[in-house]
């Protein structure tokens, strides 16, 4: 099992969700987060006072999938979230050692 964590531009969330649904991913966890990478932040000016905003709003999605789905999921996220502009985000993939569905007690791939 793999956990795919993708940090994307907030307005790309619906496109990513649609793309993952289309390849058979039936669940995800989403959080509104702030951060920076190569895009850095931006400057805001209020009546002459300049403030550097270092952390930009992003959306982090987490998708738990079976090993054989991983490549397709990554490709789908890239296809949906890419604008070509700096700040498109990143994808991280880690292994999952256990998974349990709380309602039924099903384990691992059955629980995804």
């Amino acid at each position, binding site marked *: 099992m793999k956990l795919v964590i993708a940090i994307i531009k907030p307005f790309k969330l619906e496109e990513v969700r649609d793309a993952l649904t289309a390849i058979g991913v039936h669940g995800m966890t989403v959080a509104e987060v702030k951060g920076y990478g190569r895009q850095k932040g931006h400057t*805001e*000016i*209020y*009546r*002459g*006072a300049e*403030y*550097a*905003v270092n952390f930009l709003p992003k959306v982090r999605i987490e998708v738990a999938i079976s090993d054989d789905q991983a490549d397709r999921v990554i490709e789908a996220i890239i296809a949906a979230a890419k604008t070509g502009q700096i700040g498109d985000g990143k994808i991280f993939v880690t292994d999952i050692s256990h998974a349990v569905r709380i309602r039924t007690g099903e384990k691992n791939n059955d629980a995804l």
Partner: protein
Amino acid sequence: MTTRASWGGLAISFAIAGLASFAASPAFAQAAGINQADTAWIISATGLVLMMTVPGLALFYAGMVRKKNVLATMAQSLVAAMLCSVLWLAVGYSLAFNGDGAFIGTLDRVFLLGVGMDTVHPAASTIPEALFMIFQMTFAVITVALVSGSVADRMCFAAFVWFAALWLLLVYVPLAHWVWGGGFLGAAGLLDFAGGTVVHLNAGVAGLVAAYVVGARKGYGTDNMAPYNLALGVIGTGLLWVGWFGFNGGSALAANSRAVYAIVATHLAACSGALAWMFCEWWTRGKPSVLGMISGVIAGLGTITPASGFVLPWHGVVIGLIAGASCFWACTKLKLALGYDDSLDVFGVHGVGGFLGTLLTGVFAVGAISGGPTGLLEGNSGQLLIQAYGVAVTIVYVGVATWVLLKVIDLFSPLRVSPQQEIEGLDISQHGESLQ
């Protein structure tokens, strides 16, 4: 208010047509000379001006502070309305508007003693005196509330309550008497239609002094102090803008053409002030900000205030343009150069606006509208000197009195919250509440 205004108009129509005479009917008995249209308009204008403080100014200011200080900022406008209204009834009105002493009025109208159903004030002989009293009350309320913007984010609420009460009585009331109540500035011929000196320069100078005495916010110049919600500021600006029709139009104290001219000039100054600020910012900073637009509206409104009721509509446009550009400069350059932390630019907008507007009144005043006094454009250079005299007296008195008052209050009620409370936010530390 529309209903009331149309009732007033209806009553006049009846009187003119001779179909009915309310004055002749015992059920509608009232003092000779009280005019129902005038009364209806000033009742409406009183409501408009009160709306400028709560919720107008409360929203305008609260939208510009950080989230942890939103309620505390609103609380200052609220308490100004509550406290100053009661004190105005108790003693403020009498000292400001009763008697013609050069420096202060009398105590003859304390607790509205002698104000009856049929009494009128000499300055407004066609409306009931109680209406004149409460209309003027709304000006006192907003002036005190305006000052709070300069010390937002750090002033102790208890100290602000003391300040509101004492500053009203020791600074606002004397100044109102000097200019409007029969005192020496009015007698010298100072033209101030609706409060260039009494309201805006007064609040602006007091705000500047308070910003220096209370000191800069913790983290000023380094921390991010971006406004919490400028949308609230836009709503507040809209309420202030419309309310200003009552502020300046009502200052005609009658439902007449002069009130209409004041409203037209007021609206045009708001628009041109905002355009000037917007283009100045667009040109120098690359983007026209919403904060800039609403700041320009208030700059134009504050600046036209003393001149409205004396000037032509196109003068309002010129005064607004000067106001927008000048206040933009004051808030973005002058403030940084001088290093004071006037949180919400009470001085940069109201102080500079009141200063300019009072002087420009001496330039643009039109005899046909003012009913006498003229300005530089009509060949009367002397008026400008009188205006400068009024400005100088206001700056010196307000500056010194506010400084002394704050220093005295600090002895028994600390002006400033502790650093820990300031970091935590005034909402929770002063009021035990917070926005979620």
